[in-house]
């Protein structure tokens, strides 16, 4: 295995992330947590757009639904964070499933616009259902505590986000390398061909939408806890373009690419925080430039020039043999 393989590089980064709370200041801790949240968002969106090829624009809305559900359950029903947070993820997953229904009839542009309309309708609900959502001003969420554990809130939230980001990234890698990932890619590359191979379009499209909804819901719950504040404008079009730019810059159809894209764009987001107009120009231009000049994203450069960055759509043979059970599909070896 080459020294600069994906696994080694990411392990070093992970080690760095583990010691960061003792090295950095509160601001780096905040940015770190934000980064893990965006990793979750980018990985989930990439499963849907990059792998399954569904051009959906509802990710920011799912993110918002996760944040609003988590926050409102704490404020309105006084549930503790650790009960509200899973509910947020579940609700976002269910909404993802519901959105997948029109996706079965619509594709391409029509899907893009229906999901865009859905995202705008969600914004409208956040803004105008004031009895529940507190309207345009948003609301404060209670400060969460990790009570029995001897950690302060920011550090605890940092490690919780890190843990979830690592687990769900590993999960996404495994999904991508499984039968499900191959089904997603087959649907992306040709729906009719995929169907003729026995892939159930209904099931896999619904699965892709539900998974990306789940990732966004988890991210939303963490985001509400990180900011202690939830307001409609956090989940608008700008957020949607941010997620899209992440997966395009990193690489569509690559979990590793999502990590790269999230890392670079969170850094840029923070560097340009003071200037909304500049942020918009920068992210729009990144999207445009990568789509035109480097359609595979940054990860395609790594895959071409460094060894150990490949992402085959199957498990490494050793692990596959361990997992293989009689009756399941055999894994094609090389």
């Amino acid at each position, binding site marked *: 295995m080459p020294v600069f393989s994906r696994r080694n590089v990411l392990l070093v980064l992970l080690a760095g992330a583990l010691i960061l709370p003792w090295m950095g200041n509160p601001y780096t801790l905040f940015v770190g947590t934000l980064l893990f949240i965006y990793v979750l968002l980018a990985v989930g969106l990439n499963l849907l*757009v990059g792998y399954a090829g569904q051009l959906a624009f509802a990710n920011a809305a799912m993110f918002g639904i996760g944040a609003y559900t988590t926050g409102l359950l704490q404020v309105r029903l006084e549930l503790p964070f650790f009960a509200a947070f899973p509910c947020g993820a579940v609700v976002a997953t269910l909404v993802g499933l519901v959105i997948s229904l029109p996706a079965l009839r619509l594709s391409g542009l029509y899907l893009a*616009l229906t999901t865009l309309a859905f995202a705008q309708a969600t914004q409208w609900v956040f803004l105008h259902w004031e009895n529940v959502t507190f309207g345009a001003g948003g609301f404060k969420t209670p400060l969460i505590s990790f009570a029995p554990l001897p950690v302060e809130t920011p550090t605890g939230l940092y490690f919780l986000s890190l843990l979830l980001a690592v687990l769900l990234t590993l999960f996404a890698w495994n999904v991508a390398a499984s039968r499900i990932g191959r089904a997603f890619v087959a649907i992306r590359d040709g729906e009719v061909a995929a169907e003729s191979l026995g892939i159930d379009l209904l099931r896999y499209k619904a699965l892709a939408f539900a998974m990306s909804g789940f990732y966004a819901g988890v991210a939303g719950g963490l985001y509400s806890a990180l900011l202690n504040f939830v307001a409609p404008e956090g989940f608008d079009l700008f957020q949607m373009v941010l997620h899209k730019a992440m997966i395009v810059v990193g690489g569509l159809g690559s979990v590793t690419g999502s990590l790269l894209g999230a890392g670079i764009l969170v850094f840029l987001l923070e560097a340009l925080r003071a200037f909304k107009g500049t942020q918009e*120009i920068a992210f729009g231009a*990144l*999207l445009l430039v990568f*789509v035109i000049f480097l359609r595979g994203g940054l990860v395609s450069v790594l895959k071409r020039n460094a060894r150990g960055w490949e992402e085959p759509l199957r498990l490494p043979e050793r692990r596959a043999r361990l997992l293989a059970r009689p009756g399941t599909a055999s894994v094609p070896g090389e």
Partner: protein
Amino acid sequence: MLFSYLLVSGITTGALYALIALGIVIVNKASGVINFAHGELLMVAGFVAWTLHVGLQLPYGVALLGTVAIGFAVGVLTDRIAFRPLANADLVSLVLATVGLSFILKGTARLIWGGKADYLSFPPLTQAEPILLGPLMIIPQQLVVTAGALAVMIAFAAFFRLTTAGKMMQATADNAKAAKLVGIRTDRVYMMAFAVGSLIAAAAAVLMAPLTLLYPDMGFLLFVKGFAAAVVGGLTSLPGAVLGGILVGVVESLAGGYIHSSAMEVAPFLVIMAVLIVRPTGLLDFAKVRRV
């Protein structure tokens, strides 16, 4: 009285939505792409008109011409930047490119005009008193705007049917390969489609400016309304786009008047979702019969 008032104002805004929808349909017919930056073209045109008319004190007519010319140029640029380099790309790339462009335009507008005030207002065209026609109350401003929109539509229809460029566009939309075979330079036609679509958007923006306030985030909402209108005609029918625009305008106005003012914003989204889910090919499907 309320109903007729809402109907008239719905038709006025509807005529403007129809212009937005026309631009979307022209681009889609020729190139098979939806320009997600269409709303931002409109927004930028609105600000350009404001600079010419309010900032530089030019007469309204001159501002109109100047804005339309700039709209044409921005359309050509859109084609060069976000469409032509992607001629062989998949739909995801094409859509993301125009989304990227829309954010570049929005950010640029925010940097140039965003600092002045949250909302810029455009002076009204006429100060005349409302005209009472039996039970109808018509505000002259609305009359001027509707007439302007109608004039743009007629001019466009004439261009599309009578000029060589228009006929080339029709031929390319019908069958791009065959058009190429008979010697039409289809890449020019695509450029023309983006330019004309953007020109109509610019005209719509100048007509709309006196009725609304200008702000950098206005584009997307207008795009969605125009798109909702275009969907009614199945995204390829020009008369369908006009009809759809008026439908969206009237639905929106009635929803605002009878349900709640906040219902205005959500009405077009519901129209889009309903039409797409129930009849994805548009309401004017029967109009697709080929004329011999």
